[in-house]
């Protein structure tokens, strides 16, 4: 199972800045292993964010997003105590959701 994300959500002036780190290989499908075999692509394709259960953002990623991805965005009209949930899904169909409370 995939490791948990690290989500930091900080309120400032009516907005909330969200910083997310995800544990993922983000394998491009272009690299070869020691025996010369192509390492199959394995990467997060879809990312979504929800504020208190209501969707606020979706994103689509290719394999050129760096390993152990970082993402930062700003949610409007949110405040301390609100819940931010992030979900990712990779090209193998694996998925993970984590939640953080805005501070």
């Amino acid at each position, binding site marked *: 199972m995939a490791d948990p994300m690290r989500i930091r959500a900080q309120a400032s002036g009516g907005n909330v800045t969200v910083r997310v780190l995800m544990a993922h*290989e983000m394998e491009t499908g272009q690299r070869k292993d020691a025996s010369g075999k192509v390492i199959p692509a394995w990467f997060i394709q879809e990312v979504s964010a929800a504020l208190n259960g209501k969707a606020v953002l979706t994103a689509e990623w290719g394999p050129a997003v*760096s390993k152990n991805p*970082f993402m*930062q965005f700003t949610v409007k009209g949110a405040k301390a105590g609100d819940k931010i949930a992030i979900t990712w899904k990779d090209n193998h169909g694996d998925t993970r959701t984590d939640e953080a409370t805005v501070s």
Partner: protein
Amino acid sequence: MRKTTLCAVLALAATAAGPQAWAQKSTADGIAEYREMLQDGNPAELFEAKGEDLWKQKRGPKAASLERCDLGRGPGVVKGAFVELPRYFADTGRVQDLESRLLTCMETLQGLNAAEIARTPFGKGEQKNLEGLVAWIAAESRGMKLNLPQSHAQERQMYEVGKRVFYLRGGTHDFACASCHGADGKRIRLQDLPNLTRNPGAGAGFGAWPAYRVSSGELWGMQRRLNDCFRQQRFPYPGYASDVTIALGVFMGVNGKGSVSTAPAIKR
């Protein structure tokens, strides 16, 4: 679009024609800017979180956690332990660094096979778990000053051994650690090389590891850092947690005394 491309080319040409000092300064500024951008969101955090779980989790044949592991400040004390390692341990009768000490605890408390873990390639199996553990344990001392003890005779001996290993020229290229890390203000390609024989270099260099390696996307402990230094030096293979690596840790850490630990840092 055509026009902007042309402008970009001209700007680049102008840069290339500029005075050497100016070009170098702008390169250094560019690299500094890049490093600054990476500071916010160090993936080492992912490893720290995992390490804390692993420390508390009951594992191994003895189904025990590492919570009673003595890292030098008494059983279970993690805060402040990292900045005093490597140090002498009475129970094993030797000087140990963080990774070597964790192997001891994994064997004695959890019943895992330390020799087998030491033989496991980096990033696999229990070695993967060690990445998390060293990240978390180092993070618990972040901001504290390096303060390696030198009160035990073996600690002083290991310093002297480390110094000799540091200056040992060998391999096909006659490199020693000192070839790259023995003077101030040097670079390899564009990477600054800390002078590990004194502060601030010793503290900045030694005190940054374990670190998240951008180039491989992995967390490297000091053992792996030293292992790859020896590979680049064209030396043979240093055993995991072998005395050569521990002695070098003592040498660098003592030289860095008083510097603030920034580990786990983020490195190229």
